[in-house]
């Protein structure tokens, strides 16, 4: 009836997961009770959970991402403290627990932390920047988000029902085969990643279609903001490589569930095939993350320098160059398999060639600042921190692409330091710059400047204090994933690294305080103009927060930097464009299909993990039935009356008049 599941699946004898689960469940219960008592359910259900508004979905993606970043960070704290304590000692985490922690840390940070954040930004921004009202497939979009959330849920359930994988975030066979890892950990990994992978693919298809087919009038490809270009490149990669991941994991699933032999030791299986296939996804995956991050920095550098992005076309070229070359470098993750000099030479050179595209971008950002009026507000601080950190990360990345150097540093702490250097310095810094930058567009008020700067400095200094020692440890020969350390000479560096984690904790606290303080002072921080940073692209043409239909009248773009052009014209003529004739707007109806599908896929995943076959069957049919019901819907759009549109837009115009007044008096514009 319950497959492998029994009460002993709950780790009663292990205090750490038990107490954590307890606290998490208590917090979740508390939130649910609060929502019920305050009567927020109808609002949450109609305006968020069943929403198909790309902005709401974007915000929910970011919320999920931030929550998972915190979960992943908790794992990181445990790993760093364990290694600092377990020098010639067992430490406080036994291997079977420690191995789950580093596996969960990697899986969560990449797939459930960074990915949702990046997808969230793409969802929120792409339609706004392209001057359209939603993504190409709004309901599909909601399904994509909820499937990602379903995967995240399964990973977190593994904390208190059963266990998570103990194989590393990419479960290399034969270690991940049932012979060597018989428990449910790898199955949790497989189903969580499969379900969220489908969600990611859906969003990828959605954004690609939106960019290719949904731009407003006059928004030709070469007038799109660079963020849209990077979103397009990133989503093209998603569409190209996520199916590879799905197929690879499906093969491993067949091995584990039905005794197939794709990657087993025996009967003709070849584990090296898994390694090749998984990195054919895994390397493009890091560019899926970092390309939109480059897009965010491009917007920030340009806006806060008061100048157009330098070398726009060369930025676009570099983006597409990286997009294509990133598909041809996967073997650098295992030079040490002994492929031979010719193969290693090819992949070494192709890997380092990517640095050309990145290098060009770095110079273009520098020249964007050249001749500008650079304002060092919080998003700009993150961007400068990125410029420094990412350049060093790029240097060590090219080092790892040199096969003879990689033969010494592969899998070492040097490697760990490198990829944190580029992923934190690139993606995470971009995410915080972006959160700061677009927060007013989403919620109507800015975040507190002082606490934002404090968070930046803690994160920046904390990052270097944590990871610089790991570079040294790598050079001292320390490999990654050690549960305890047998070489006492490494101790000082491990201690320094823990101190760095302490500084990072302060950064996280500052970030949380910033949010709380900003919500408290929201009236003082309110953005009444809709254009708090003197922006240049179309999202700043909308009021803050942007109305659900984005634009009352579809914009007509007449050049690069669409909104900047409109603003200049208004300042020159000293008046806004004439009031348009408002027409009713058709908007898609909200739909619960996403949350219901995700509910059933979560049940399906859980049932598959625990071999509860009947439940898996029922849940799969139910999840599929959602789509069938949705396909037969009668009403899929509703009309916003012209008066409502006019009311919202006249308020916006009034605010703009005030802004125009202020700009003209200041003479701020050139």
């Amino acid at each position: 009836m319950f497959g492998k599941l029994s009460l002993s699946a709950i780790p009663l004898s292990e205090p750490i997961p038990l107490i954590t689960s307890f606290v998490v469940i208590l917090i979740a219960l508390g939130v649910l009770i609060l929502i019920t008592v305050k009567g927020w359910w109808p609002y949450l259900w109609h305006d968020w959970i069943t929403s198909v508004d790309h902005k709401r979905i974007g915000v929910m993606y970011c919320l999920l991402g931030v929550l998972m970043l915190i979960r992943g960070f908790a794992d990181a704290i445990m790993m760093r403290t364990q290694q600092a304590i377990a020098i010639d000692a067992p430490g406080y985490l036994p291997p079977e627990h420690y191995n789950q922690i580093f596996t969960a840390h990697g899986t969560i940070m990449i797939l459930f932390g960074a990915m949702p954040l990046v997808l969230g930004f793409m969802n929120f921004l792409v339609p706004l920047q392209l001057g359209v009202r939603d993504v190409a497939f709004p309901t599909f979009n909601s399904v994509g988000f909820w499937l990602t959330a379903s995967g995240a849920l399964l990973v977190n359930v593994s904390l208190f029902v059963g266990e998570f994988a103990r194989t590393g975030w990419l479960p290399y066979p034969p270690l991940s085969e049932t012979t060597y890892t018989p428990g449910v950990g790898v199955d949790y990994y497989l189903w969580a990643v499969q379900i969220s992978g489908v969600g990611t693919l859906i969003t990828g298809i959605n954004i690609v279609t939106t960019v290719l087919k949904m731009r407003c009038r006059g928004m030709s490809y070469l007038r799109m903001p660079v963020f849209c270009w990077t979103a397009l490149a990133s989503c093209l990669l998603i569409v190209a490589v996520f199916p590879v991941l799905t197929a690879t994991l499906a093969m491993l699933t067949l091995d584990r569930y039905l005794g197939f032999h794709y990657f087993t030791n025996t009967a003709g299986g070849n584990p090296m095939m898994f390694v090749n296939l998984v990195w054919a996804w895994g390397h493009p995956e890091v560019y899926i993350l970092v390309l939109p991050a480059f897009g965010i920095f491009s917007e920030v550098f340009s806006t806060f320098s008061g100048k157009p992005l330098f070398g726009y076309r060369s930025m676009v070229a570099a983006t597409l160059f990286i997009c294509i070359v990133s598909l041809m470098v996967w073997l650098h993750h295992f030079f040490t398999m002994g492929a031979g000099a010719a193969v290693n030479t090819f992949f070494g050179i192709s890997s380092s060639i990517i640095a050309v595209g990145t290098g060009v971008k770095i110079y273009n950002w520098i020249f964007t600042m050249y001749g500008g009026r650079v304002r060092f507000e919080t998003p700009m601080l993150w961007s400068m921190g990125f410029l420094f950190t990412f350049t060093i990360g790029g240097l060590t990345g090219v080092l790892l692409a040199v096969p003879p150097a990689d033969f010494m540093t592969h899998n070492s702490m040097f490697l760990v330091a490198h990829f944190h250097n580029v992923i934190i310095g690139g993606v995470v810094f971009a995410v915080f710059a972006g959160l700061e930058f677009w927060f007013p567009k989403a919620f109507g008020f800015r975040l507190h400047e002082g606490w934002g700067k404090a968070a930046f400095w803690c994160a920046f200094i904390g990052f270097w204090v944590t990871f610089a020692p790991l570079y040294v440890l790598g050079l001292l020969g320390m490999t990654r994933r050690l549960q305890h350390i047998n070489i006492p000479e490494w101790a000082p560096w491990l201690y320094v690294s823990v101190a760095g984690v302490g500084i990072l904790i302060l950064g996280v606290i500052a970030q949380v305080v910033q949010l709380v303080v900003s919500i408290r002072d929201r009236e003082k921080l309110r953005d009444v103009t809709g254009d708090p940073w003197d922006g240049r692209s179309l999202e700043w043409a909308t009021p803050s927060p942007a109305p659900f239909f984005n634009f009352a009248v579809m914009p007509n773009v007449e050049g690069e930097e669409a909104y900047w052009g409109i603003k200049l014209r208004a300042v020159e003529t000293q008046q806004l464009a004439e009031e348009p004739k408002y027409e009713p707007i058709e908007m898609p109806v909200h739909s619960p299909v996403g949350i219901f599908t995700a509910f059933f896929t979560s049940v399906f995943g859980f049932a598959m993990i625990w071999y509860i076959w009947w439940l898996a069957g029922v849940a799969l049919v139910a999840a599929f039935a959602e789509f069938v019901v949705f396909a037969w819907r009668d009403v899929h759009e509703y009309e916003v009356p012209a008066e409502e549109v006019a009311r919202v837009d006249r308020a916006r115009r009034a605010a703009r008049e005030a802004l125009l007044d202020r700009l003209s008096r200041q003479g701020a514009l050139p």
Partner: protein
Amino acid sequence: MAGLLFKGAPARAWRGLILGFLSLGLASCAGGILDPLGPVGQGNAIILIDATLIMLAIVIPTILLAFWVAWRYNAANPKAEYLPYWAYSGRVEAVVWSIPVLTIMFIGGLIWIGSYKLDPFRPLPSKSPPLEVQVVSLDWKWLFIYPQQGIATVNQVVVPAGTPVRFSITSASVFNAFFVPRLGSMIYAMPGMISQVNLQADSAEEIWGISAQFSGDGFSDMQFQVRSVPAADFETWAAGIRGSGPRLDEAAYAGLLQQTHRVSPATFGAIDPELFQAVATQKIAPGPGPEPEGPGHAGREVSTGGKD
């Protein structure tokens, strides 16, 4: 600067200086990869340093430029001129593409030459013929078979200083990576496959090796002793072991296949010469993994955490 590309006396002096400096800087680096004990480690370390220097030559000015520009054009500086429309310059574009392209061409050359010169399969130039050592990674220990000497060891490997050693490596269970940081290149130990690495220790010293690919609960203790001894001592050592202690045959090997933690070094006085091939071709079945799951575990595996 690119010591590998320009083989002159000044380059060599530079290299020595840098190596020395870095060694000093990492004074406590007993066992580090920048403190190589043999030609392979030396070659790798030199390439690592050369590539770093080539890139630093670009990266340092770039970072300085970034901060100088940001500081010079900050909004509070009234002296800086404001060029609100300056967003394209063919000359600047040409330069910003050329700098990374040229750097990567330089690094590309380093990659090309280095990959061939330091290919792990490539025999090392030497007057003496290489010593053959067969390596099997097991859960969670290393087995070293000396076919020429007819002996085998567990978790310790003794090599003659100044003589190249050809390691042939396979795995009896999951992936591992055979890595002696001070000797140089690591290489994967893969089940059903034989990989090779040629290494050499130049002087007598006691160092250590590890597995550099996570392989399960006992991974942290897959450390092994590496002793390089004068060539004459090596013969004495091998002769001392030969004939004493147990014989490594299929029965003894079956014991090694079981999962064990923190295995102390051991020796075998005789070997079955076909054993390594039988392991690599999986005529002998790979390690059985953990004990079969008890009904009480309900999907959670509990290991002894190295306490056995």
